[in-house]
């Protein structure tokens, strides 16, 4: 429905690779679990690191075997087969953190079967991970040029190839594709196919909360996050056996400090501390980036917020909440078209995200596209009929369109529900007070 062929193709390939990596990933999970225990389970960490080393060696043997097979098979393979072999090997290299090797394979695949749109996406993501942002942008554009109706690729072009708010013709056309996709969106679909590709072996979403290392594990965690697994195992092995005195400025300490600062409204300090915690984060970096982005917004640093959200969606592209929050940051920054792209990203992940539809509607209202706002709010209400608040916005859109009768009807429905909710809240508060007074006087509360 959404034209997510790229996602399907990538997932299919990645699934094979991930199967090979399973034991390594499990070992990393065990490491993460041990690291968050209090007190820190050093023995369990050592065991996990040993498992990582063992599985890494096995992984490398598997990868070497794959390299041998590709080398053997490619000579007599058809163009299509050779293309598939190159892609498979490239994906395997990328998962292993061998970005340069992966890029060679992707480029070879592109040469074999141009324009190889899906592979260009993989190549772009690899380039992006390597910090080669301009080249990544070119690759995203190449991917989209060959598959211009694909909204996922359109999203990449709209959001990743230009600074936010740019009006380059590619970005404009990509945004038009997303707008058209929204018009044709089928909210009857239970869930999208696969959302955005995430080629990393150790996903940032390994944990819902940030896994941040202390002085013993932070360096290793950082190396894992960078895909430098061999170095990570070496560093962790060294650190877990060194019995060094713990430094109290480790990323884990910074994380705790940041949480305290945030709770105490010390916004700038919390932001700095979370930034420092990133340096030792194994997973959940997107959560830290979201925290930094929120704090930046409170500080009025909207460019800082957008930078942080950009990192967050790269690390966790299939989290609709982050895309929605990112959209709100763009709205606050006065970049409505970029906000729309992020909302579309949320809907590419989950077309039945009622809040995202309501946010699209609000964006349309803000930009005086009232008829389109009606469509969006109608969708939001279809998906979440109990969210009576959406009716208020829907009524607003109808009012602006001069649809007085429909606006009045929606407002009446809204008001009825709102009053009921208010009465319920009043009763709850009254009940709380009654209980408190009962407890205070020794009499049983109701």
């Amino acid at each position, binding site marked *: 429905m959404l034209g997510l062929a790229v996602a399907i193709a990538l997932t299919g390939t990645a699934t094979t690779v991930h199967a090979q990596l399973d034991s390594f990933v499990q070992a990393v999970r065990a490491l993460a679990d041990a690291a968050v225990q209090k007190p820190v389970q050093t023995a369990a960490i050592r065991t996990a690191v040993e498992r990582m080393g063992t599985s890494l060696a096995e992984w490398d043997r598997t990868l070497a075997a794959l390299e041998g097979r590709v080398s053997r098979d490619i000579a007599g393979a058809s163009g299509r087969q050779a293309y598939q072999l190159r892609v498979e090997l490239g994906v395997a290299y990328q998962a292993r953190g061998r970005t340069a090797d992966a890029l060679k394979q992707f480029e070879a695949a592109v040469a074999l079967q141009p324009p190889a749109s899906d592979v260009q996406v993989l190549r772009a993501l690899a380039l992006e991970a390597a910090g080669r942002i301009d080249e990544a942008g070119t690759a995203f554009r190449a991917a989209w040029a060959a598959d211009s109706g694909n909204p996922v690729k359109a999203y990449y072009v709209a959001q990743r190839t230009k600074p936010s708010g740019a009006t380059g013709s590619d970005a404009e056309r990509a945004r038009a594709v997303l707008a058209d996709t929204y018009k044709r969106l089928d909210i009857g679909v239970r869930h999208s196919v696969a959302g955005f590709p995430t080629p990393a072996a150790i996903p940032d979403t390994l944990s819902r909360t940030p896994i941040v290392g202390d002085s013993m594990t932070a360096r290793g965690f950082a190396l894992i996050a960078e895909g430098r697994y061999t170095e990570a195992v070496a560093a962790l092995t060294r650190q877990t056996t060194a019995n060094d005195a713990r430094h109290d400025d480790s990323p884990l300490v910074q994380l705790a400090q940041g949480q305290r600062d*945030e*709770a*105490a*409204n010390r*916004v700038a300090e919390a932001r700095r501390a979370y930034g420092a915690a990133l340096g030792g984060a194994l997973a959940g970096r997107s959560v830290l980036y979201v925290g930094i982005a*929120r704090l930046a*917004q*409170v*500080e*009025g640093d*909207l460019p800082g*917020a957008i930078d942080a959200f950009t990192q967050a969606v790269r690390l966790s592209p299939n989290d609709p909440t982050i895309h929605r929050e990112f959209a*709100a940051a763009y*709205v*606050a*920054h*006065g970049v*409505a078209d970029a906000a729309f792209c992020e909302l579309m990203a949320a809907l590419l992940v989950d077309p039945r995200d009622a809040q995202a539809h309501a946010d699209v509607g*609000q964006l349309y*209202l*803000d930009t005086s596209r009232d008829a389109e706002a009606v469509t969006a709010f109608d969708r939001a209400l279809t998906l979440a009929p109990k969210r*009576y*608040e*959406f*009716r*208020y*916005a829907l*009524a*607003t859109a109808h*009012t*602006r369109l001069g649809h007085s009768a429909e*606006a009045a009807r929606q*407002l009446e429905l*809204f*008001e009825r529900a*709102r009053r009921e909710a*208010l009465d319920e*809240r*009043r009763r709850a*508060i*009254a009940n*709380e*007070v009654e*209980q*408190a*007074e*009962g*407890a*205070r006087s020794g009499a049983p509360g109701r």
Partner: protein
Amino acid sequence: MIVRWLLLAAVPAAIAAADAPLPQFVDIARQAGVVFHHTNGASADKHLVETMGSGGLFFDYDNDGWIDVFLVDGGSLADPGVARRARHRLFHNLGLSGKGQGVRFEDVTERSGIQHRGYGMGACAGDYDGDGRPDLYITSDGPNALYRNRGDGTFVDVTATAHVADSRWSASCAFADLDRDGDLDLWVTHYVDADRARSPFCGDARSGIRFYCHPLKYDPLPNTVYRNDGNGVFTDVTAASGVGALRANGLGVVVADYDNDGLPDVFVANDTMPNFLFHNTGNMKFVETGLVSGIALAADGKARAGMGIDAGDYDGDGRLDLVITNLDFEMHTLQRGLERGLFGYATTESGIGFPTLPFVGFGVAFLDFDNDTQLDIAIANGHILDNAPLFRTGSTYMQRKLLFRNTTGRRFAEVGRNAGPAFAAEKVGRGLAIGDIDNDGDLDLLVTNNGQDAELLRNDGGNRANAILVRLRGAGRNTGAIGARVRLTVGSRTQIRDIRAGSSYLSQNDLRAHFGLGAAARADRIEVLWPSGKTETFSGVPANQIVTVEEGKGIVNQQPFSR
């Protein structure tokens, strides 16, 4: 094409505004003689009123051209001894001292005859009897009071004869000629129906932690509308006007003709309930249109804890916009005026949303504090709960003020931390009023703080750019020209200011209309739309002066700024 050109043209101005030196606000209250400590009567009983007040206002009670200060004191419901010590204060502006020490005030409360009754909340000033002198209405949790200005520095309590006594919990008030009959009527908001003898226990009885109760614990109240009968007597027309049928937790009020139909409409900020827009349909009848107009709720369809409110045209499109202060984690609200009397929720897009998240806002005003021709926003903040950290870790009772600088006409940047130590200081902010206390061409601030000293924040450097102050004198009984609209044009840009007796939170601004002119040496055109319906225009008015305009007589006085 023209739109694109305008956008491009706006960019250098925006950059210039963002880069311009920031005026510094200095608290001169004590050195200027405005010594006032608010009595909040904070008690173990946690009467809600203890944390809600009180306000203050600028008004030139003696018409000498120097705005005076009136500060409302609270009181105590729990301790009669404390209640007896509470005292409203009137400070007479003596003007600039000859020794370069700046503006000086004298406490003239004792001889003014103004008494303290009940638990003081807010005040508004307007010449209700048309004798040319602004009178004073004081709201309370308890009996309100109307003081007629005798013109000799004294005031006489005429509450009973004027029939404007009200013993319910009143909050903000505003004088305005609501029925367009030429004299000033009176609007009073009411908060909640709370028992003064006994405060319910809200909190955790086991740990003994007690908080001020949520306003939804109490019954809401309707607003009160008093029609001025022109003979020194008001008639309560709340029911007949259609206003009385609606109850809410009313706090801030601002009167503004948002739809330019010549009839003043009334916006009321309601705490935890939808805000009201009482659309004036004439003959002292109102229809509440908050929901339809878009000002009742935030964009998410949820009511906010509306506290203070102001109206102004911040984006220069000729339509009034609204700013409303709310609770923390709600964002303060900015509503942009659209066509056909509708409003659009502009909180996020304007940039005021996220920076206001941690703050509980009260007093608020649109003002051009740097005279760059764009309306900025000043906000006084302070939590409701004096034990806020027990309610939510990280929350603080005292909070800093916020100053949003208008950078592009549609967007704001928060610069409060850099606007001087006094501005950045954390207080329990409540009322906020704007006015030019020293007649130097930039806007100063009066900020009231719950249980703390009031602040008089002098603006240093705001007058680096040019400005004009316009003082109006109406020809009829509405001598203060309350409800007049002044339009000032320089080049293609027109600014509008309304003359209002009551706004913000429990407060009132200087009645003179202040216009920043930027680098312009003169206003190309000043147009005054009098409440009587007449219009007068003046061309080529030089900058940096106070211009007095009398209805039907034109400019009768021009006084250079004191610099």
